């Protein structure tokens, strides 16, 4: 075997009392694709940040082609050929693509930016790797997928030979993700070495040559892709066997929520166009679709933060007007927002406050908050939903994504809602956390809750939903029974193919 391009030797890093990386060593060969796998908080991002010079390790060394990198110097890492695509994009929305890419690439104290040369070079690279972008577009105007491309181009522009991608597909649609991995494979064949982090085992199995698993800051396993399988990886990650729960047959009850010809217009654009659906007690209705097709508007409408421009909504059989958040909550509708960090929780507030904020009227009297009751409520959620990493009084920001999601689930399911609007409930979670969220949703269904599951993850929807509708360009397809559906058919629906066939009844 040839000498590794990258060697991580005995790296440890401590945050306060928390040992985030514990004596980790690994290597990467030229042209190799390594997947880094682990639960939320296992230390993956930390390790990669050390490699890139964001963090200074407490112990250990990073060697590129056998030469040690000075710790804590991103510039040195870039020079040595390391490129990093961050878990949370590091881009400036107000600058152009070219400006985002060019930052820091020239000698700082020169009298001129060689803009046109840089534009040509960027176009060359984007041509070569099939990553198409408009260099002069304002970054904030691009879709998430395009922004991801810019992130990769940034690294390639710096002549990266080692590319690190931290959860690159967390915000991409399946199609975009597939396209990305094709590109990455292509890059590897051109001699680039890659490390990517992902929670999606399918991706890992499909794209990686080798898989490294972290747990609790330690490296617990290393496998060649051909020598392992999804089940083993899941078990290695979590430390015990994980199985995703399966849906049992159920008898849906009465229709609790019915939408007819609903239209929602935001800023002059129709985000929802005559959308109709029916949601029954004890069933999960899955709404699939590529993000940006109206899911957010649908979720916000039903969550009480958006009002409709046209159409009828019937709740428990009664026609209703526009709903505010308070109405929605008091009507017994639970809501799991798409983005737990911005909408789902207020990071700087205590866990108990986040638990009660949306139903504050039931935890207050005469305008005064009943702190004791709130704390008790939070403690119950923490116990029942296995929220780890904090007590009711600690700041919510300190919870990991999975645990924050459990908190959000808990505050909604605790009161056994009649309807639950769940938008991307398992996004970015590790295998164990995904299983936990899924089983909670199924349990709610068993207890008679009507669940509207909005998701981009086909596997998730097929596994959980009783019926499935696709959302495309603000329109909703007719429902199909999940048992009749397969990935190919759903793929067609997500591409908007139902319209052609819908006249022929439910021919598919």
């Amino acid at each position, binding site marked *: 075997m040839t000498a590794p391009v990258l060697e991580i030797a005995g790296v440890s890093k401590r945050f306060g009392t928390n040992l985030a990386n514990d004596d980790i060593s690994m290597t990467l060969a030229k042209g190799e694709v390594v997947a880094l796998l682990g639960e939320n908080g296992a230390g993956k991002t930390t390790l990669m940040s050390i490699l890139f010079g964001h963090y200074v390790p407490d112990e250990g060394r990073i060697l590129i082609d056998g030469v040690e990198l000075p710790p804590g110097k991103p510039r040195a890492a870039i020079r040595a050929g390391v490129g990093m695509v961050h878990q949370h994009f590091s881009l400036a929305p107000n600058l152009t693509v070219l400006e985002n890419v060019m930052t820091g690439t020239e000698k700082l104290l020169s009298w001129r930016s060689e803009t046109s040369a840089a534009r040509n070079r960027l176009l060359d690279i984007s041509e070569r790797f099939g990553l198409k972008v408009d260099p002069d577009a304002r970054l904030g105007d691009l879709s998430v997928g395009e922004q991801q491309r810019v992130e990769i181009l940034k690294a390639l522009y710096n002549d990266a030979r080692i590319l690190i991608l931290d959860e690159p597909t967390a915000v991409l649609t399946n199609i975009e993700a597939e396209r990305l991995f094709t590109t990455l494979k292509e890059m590897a064949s051109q001699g680039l070495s890659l490390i990517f982090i992902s929670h999606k085992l399918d991706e890992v199995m499909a794209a990686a040559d080798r898989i490294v698993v972290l747990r609790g800051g330690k490296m617990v396993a290393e496998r060649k892709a051909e020598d392992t399988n999804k089940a083993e990886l899941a078990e290695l990650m979590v430390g015990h066997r994980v199985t995703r729960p399966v849906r049992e047959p159920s008898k849906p009850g009465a229709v609790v929520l019915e939408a007819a010809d609903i239209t929602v217009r935001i800023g002059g654009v129709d985000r929802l166009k005559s959308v109709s659906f029916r949601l029954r007690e004890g069933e999960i209705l899955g709404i699939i679709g590529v993000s940006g097709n109206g899911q957010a508007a649908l979720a916000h409408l039903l969550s009480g933060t958006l009002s409709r421009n046209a159409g009828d909504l019937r709740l428990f059989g009664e026609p209703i007007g526009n709903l*505010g*958040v308070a109405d929605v909550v008091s009507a017994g509708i639970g809501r799991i927002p798409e983005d737990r960090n911005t*909408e789902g929780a207020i990071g700087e507030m205590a866990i108990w406050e986040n638990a009660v904020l949306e139903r504050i009227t039931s935890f207050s009297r005469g305008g005064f*908050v009943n702190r004791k009751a709130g704390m008790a409520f939070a403690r119950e959620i923490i116990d029942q939903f296995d929220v780890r990493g904090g007590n009711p009084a600690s700041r919510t920001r300190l919870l990991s994504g999975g645990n924050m999601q459990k908190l959000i689930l808990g505050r909604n399911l605790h009161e056994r809602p009649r309807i639950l609007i769940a938008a991307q409930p398992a996004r970015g979670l590790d295998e164990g956390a995904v299983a936990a969220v899924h089983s909670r949703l199924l349990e709610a269904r068993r207890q008679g809750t009507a669940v509207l599951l909005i998701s981009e993850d086909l596997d998730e929807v097929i596994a959980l939903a009783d019926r499935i509708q696709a959302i495309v360009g603000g329109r909703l397809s007719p429902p199909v029974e999940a048992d009749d559906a397969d990935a190919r058919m759903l793929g067609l629906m997500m591409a908007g193919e139902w319209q052609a066939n819908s006249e022929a009844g439910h021919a598919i």
Partner: protein
Amino acid sequence: MRFERRDHRPLYLLVLTPVLAVIAALALSGILIAIAGAPVLEAYWRILTSAFGSRLSATETLTRATPLMLTGLAAAVAFRARLWNIGAEGQFYLGAIAVAAAGSQLLAGLPAPVVIPLLLVIGAIAGMALILIPLWLRLRFSVDEVVTSLLLNFIALLFVSMLIDGVLKDPMAFGWPQSQPVSDAATLPKLIARSRLHIGFAIAIGLAILVHLIQSRTVFGMQSRAAGLNPEGAVFAGVPLGRTLVKVACLSGGLAGLAGAIEVMGVKGYVTTDLSPGFGYAGIVVAMLANLNPLGVVLAALFTATMFVGADGMSRSLGIPTYIADVTVALSLLTMLIALFFTQYRIRR
């Protein structure tokens, strides 16, 4: 060298760091005092006695702390909700002029128990009215309120200057631009006779406690905090964002207006354009020193007033330039800010 956020704040640190800050500030201003040729140790002693050494100095310190508490609360309330109200100075003046207008003309002749509460409310309302302008601009046009509220300070001051030079001018002031005085009934009773300390001081402390209760115990307090920390999250949780901000703004502007009202009714009796030596701006610093905690504001205001009154008196008794007082206050604020930082962070490597 890096800074790392502390998980726990040990008690000794919370006590020790402010003390170190004061020592550092005094050491630095000691250098300046020495340069002026005055005995440094004696200067320190004079600072102490000038702030608390006699009945006069102690009551003066508390009197000067009173408006700082109120403007400090105004800033703390607004900043908690991320409403960057830099306009307390202008709100202070509007509160003051409203009280002067009402207290000298409209309500003259009413007995004290009626007129005093009424005037306090009027002062608060005037402060609210002014802050609603930047708030409206923010909600309607998304104009950053830092700048608009700052600019409104100058407009408010000129407006007051115009009034006290015109319709509200005191004809007994021989043409000097000053407002008519508020009636005797409208003068706040003294807390201590033969001093300037008035019940406004007690009102300020009472309001600090009230604001503390509002912020820590009420639904509105929780919602305004949520709105400040994460507006999107707050909206999702059903917090009426606009309405909450309006309420926060009214509370903040009201407190600043009240500060002006109380300064007029308690101390000066009428309005001139030099009523406030920057109380509105100082309130911002007081609020930050207090970490936006309403009860902390009381302490921070007392601290600031102590430093000022102490150093001011010291300069007089030692015959060094009066400006040393502001220098000492500024140094204490800066060192105190740094000290507060180190109660939250530790140095690593």
